[in-house]
């Protein structure tokens, strides 16, 4: 159960940086991450001009380009990178853009679990949460069979 939202920002010569800044919720600290899926060069970008997007993170002390685009050569890239912290900055360090950054914001849901409950609810999937010992035994038997089969093949 996670909260997701679309993330989209535009970098241009005039507005050449964008920051992702998360306000942490103190009552229920949640894992948050930003995933960058695509970085795209606008139609108006100048031909043969390199457009470079650099990312800076505070926690990992990282500063590195994640996109190098050029009209006529590379229109878009798909980084599929993730940032797991509260302060990330994207900057157009070369070129005048416009450059569009697309991705999503994902917030883990923090469930308050009662540790006194007997069932292994966390690791087991929904179907197996059933309090049916026969079913659980069947699953474990199948798993054991699978293991044995592997050994025989060796």
């Amino acid at each position, binding site marked *: 159960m996670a909260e997701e939202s679309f993330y989209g920002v535009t970098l241009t010569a005039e507005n050449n940086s964008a920051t992702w800044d998360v306000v942490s919720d103190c009552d229920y600290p949640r894992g948050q991450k930003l995933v960058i899926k*695509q970085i795209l*060069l606008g*139609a108006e970008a100048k031909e043969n001009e390199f457009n470079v997007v650099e990312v800076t993170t505070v926690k990992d002390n990282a500063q590195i380009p994640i996109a190098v685009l050029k009209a006529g050569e590379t*229109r878009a890239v798909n980084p599929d990178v993730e940032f797991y912290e509260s302060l990330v900055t994207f900057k157009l360090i070369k070129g005048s853009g416009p450059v569009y950054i697309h991705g999503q914001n994902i917030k883990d849901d923090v469930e308050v679990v009662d540790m006194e409950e007997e069932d292994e609810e966390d690791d087991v999937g929904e179907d197996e949460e059933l309090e049916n010992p*026969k079913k659980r*035994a069947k699953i474990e038997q199948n798993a054991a069979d699978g293991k044995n089969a592997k050994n025989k093949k060796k």
Partner: protein
Amino acid sequence: MESESFYGVTLSEKEPIAQFDVPEIPEDYVVHSHKLIIKQISLGPEAKSGEFNVVQAESNQIADGEKKTIKIPIAVLKVGETRSLRPNIEFPNGSVTFKLVQGTGPVYVCGKAEMNLGEYDDAQMYEEYSDEDDEESDLDDVAPQTNGKGNKKK
């Protein structure tokens, strides 16, 4: 329980707009979440040379209790330069409108729509499982371990 479906629309000069609405909630379930994933956007063979084809996405979502609208190009295609893109962008929990804001196309937008049905609510969950018990009780009476009996998981 998850519901997935293929999503595909064509944008052209005559029909430049395609709207994806928040899916209707089927009666038995409370939709927990849904999302639209855009996997590929490509330019048809009839597209004109020297013309940019730009697809813009307008996403309306509710994040943190607020309504948020983002309007941003997600594809820039051009004959001889970029025939297709694979954005792999997700639009969770909200409606999206795709518009061909530049060029005559045709542009094909493909992806998938996912719906996550069912609630993580104990009462709801056990209600569902009591239905399942009725269906599967026959199998359990016959043999606790039903290997090879085609026990298909729902």
